[in-house]
């Protein structure tokens, strides 16, 4: 069986698992349901996939799994993206611990520079109960690894990704070990790519529920999906998601220096697309899209938080300009 066929078969397993265990719109899983999900993810090898060293085209596998799950649950996909990026960093430094998550330090100092990691907040998903944490600086050029017990929990409420049990931390005392710079850079690239995969899946999920709704909802004695104006919105949503899919594919096939550039291109497109697609999904649903009983309201909140977890758009655009024009004079 080819690597592609292996991946497709595996994604079929993940898809079935997601469809059975992750109802669209169920934002926070009950402890029972979460326990079942974790057991099934573990049995399917999903939880440790980021630590696989023998996998042919490993990043494609991770990205595909995350997109598949994000169509049902952006929060769990986000948790996996964070986990996989950390696992790959830990493998790179020959550390056995695989129960880890990665996140970015956020915040600027008074001169508009990224604050150092030790002075920053970092938002991390703890739904999979990580024992350790990889914190990357705001630019993705350096990072540290630290036991979770060395972090101080801060009371910060965030917009979405409730089901990831998103928490905000700050380093509470010394004890963090610096990652080698190449490992930090690679971890940042991995995290960005995997977050892009999560944003893509979220957008595709929003599109799917919107198309379903447009087929069912009737106004003026016809399904609203039969009106050209609304069909155009759905087509816009589709092409936005499709463009991200194309750029993500380009990032997955790029090598060397171009790999980071392609990831940044995909990330920039995904960040804007996922929010706009979620906005449009609410529009398609009308008033029902605005109430939390329907899944699309929460998808906008998830989209906002996913984008906040990715590299800031200004930084991404600056890097893309640097690639062609050289560094800012």
């Amino acid at each position: 069986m080819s690597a592609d066929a292996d991946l497709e078969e595996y994604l079929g397993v993940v898809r079935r698992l997601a469809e059975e265990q992750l109802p669209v719109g169920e934002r926070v899983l009950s402890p029972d349901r979460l326990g079942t999900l974790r057991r099934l993810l573990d049995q399917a090898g999903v939880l440790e996939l980021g630590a696989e060293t023998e996998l042919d085209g490993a990043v494609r596998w991770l990205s595909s799994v995350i997109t598949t799950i994000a169509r049902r649950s952006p929060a769990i996909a986000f948790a996996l993206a964070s986990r996989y990026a950390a696992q790959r960093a830990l493998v790179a430094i020959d550390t056995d611990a695989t129960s880890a998550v990665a996140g970015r330090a956020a915040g600027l100092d008074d001169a508009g520079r990224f604050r150092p990691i030790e002075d920053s907040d970092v938002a991390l998903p703890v739904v999979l109960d990580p024992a350790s944490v990889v914190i990357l600086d705001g630019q993705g050029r350096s990072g540290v690894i630290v036991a979770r017990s060395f972090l101080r929990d801060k009371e910060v409420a965030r917009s979405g990704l409730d089901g990831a049990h998103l928490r905000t931390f700050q380093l509470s005392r010394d004890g963090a070990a610096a990652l080698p710079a190449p490992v930090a850079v690679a971890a940042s690239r991995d995290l960005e790519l995997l977050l892009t995969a999560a944003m893509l899946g979220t957008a595709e999920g929003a599109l799917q529920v919107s198309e379903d709704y447009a087929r069912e909802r009737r106004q003026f004695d016809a399904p609203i999906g039969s009106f050209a104006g609304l069909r155009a919105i759905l087509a816009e949503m589709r092409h936005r998601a499709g463009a991200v899919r194309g750029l993500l594919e380009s990032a997955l096939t790029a090598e060397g220096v171009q790999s980071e550039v392609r990831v940044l291109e995909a990330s920039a497109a995904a960040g804007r697309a996922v929010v706009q697609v979620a906005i449009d999904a609410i529009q398609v649903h009308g008033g029902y899209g605005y109430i939390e009983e329907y899944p699309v309201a929460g998808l906008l909140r998830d989209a906002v938080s996913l984008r906040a977890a990715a590299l800031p758009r200004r930084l991404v655009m600056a890097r893309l300009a640097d690639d062609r024009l050289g560094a800012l004079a």
Partner: protein
Amino acid sequence: MSEIESPAYDVSVHESPAYDVSGPATAYLSALQPVLDEVIVPAAEDVDRDHLFPRQGVQALVDAGLGGLLIPREFGGPDAGLVVYAEVLARIAAACGSTSTVYMTNLHCAHPIVLGGRVDQQRRWVPALGSGQAFGATALTESEAGSDVASMRTYARRDGDSYVINGSKMFISNGDVADVLVLFATVDPALGRDGITAFLLDTAHLSGFGVGRPMDKLGQRGASTVPLSFDHCRVPADAVLGEVGRGWALLLQAVLRSRISAAAQGVGFATGAFETVVAYCAKHGLLTARNRAAQDLQFDLAALRAEISAARALLLHACAATDAVAAAGGADPTALLAEVKLHCTRVGVQVAARCLELLGGEADRLDVGLERRLRDAKITEIYDGTNQVQSMLIARDLRFSPTAMSALDTRP
């Protein structure tokens, strides 16, 4: 001037009513600022997070003389005009979306009473709605009659000296706190629009009237929105507002004004988001001339401010035009109001979304207050006629007057 350079349309040939936010407007805005600073802004985050009905904020607005800006003088209001109203509402929205919606919903309820009510109905309710002594709601949307309003099923059957109402309404702002309800129902489903009739109901004296659980909404979470039910709800025949079978015309007049409210909110949400980002950027030294690396950010902010200014100018122009047309005894300019609603609400959503991009990893923090503006703004593209409905109205206008630029052409 070459043909290419020649403008297809010359704004100078059209009468352009001046909108003036100086003079009387200044007094209202001066009265508003301390209410925003001391009451509404400090409560906004809690109102959103905990679904707190912003009674205190609305009362403070009333106490400052801002409660019934559009209420005619004969009913004790200042009749301040739409320009002042839109400016005030936009600033309230910039501070707190929930408060702005509760505030404007009272005026939306009063408007059809002013337009179509009997004197006794007007005297009973219009001053009370303007002075904050009563809350009002307008019950129009149904679960199966959203954009297709005319297909409403709530049925008011004549029975002697009364009507017996059966049916349900959805997404009713202020529905659970309303002392008075303007209800649209049909007296004969077979008549379509010609059966639609408005009723003015005192909720303290209604049997068979039920209020559902407040909806958990994406935004404007302090402004309660509920379903309402009518189960053999008997009301006296004199509860009819206007004429039997003329509810559709009343409805069309009423929603035109509420579209100005949605547009003002759009400008307000964009402004609130923008001011949040500008304050953040100033705090972090990103607006200084010497910070050349931040020029991209400064250009983004410049573009956003230009967008907000353009939307605000359109809004105020439409308000002035609508007031001018009304003073001349003409009908509200439907297509113009559709344009202003479409444009300003879109600006509200898009500016808020762009502002979120500029804040990076801190954009989704609730305490920053930025994502709240996007959540609050999104519903303005849906309520008071979805933006698809506004597009239909503008497209219809194009068919009748293909050369008109209605947003700038204010001639009746």
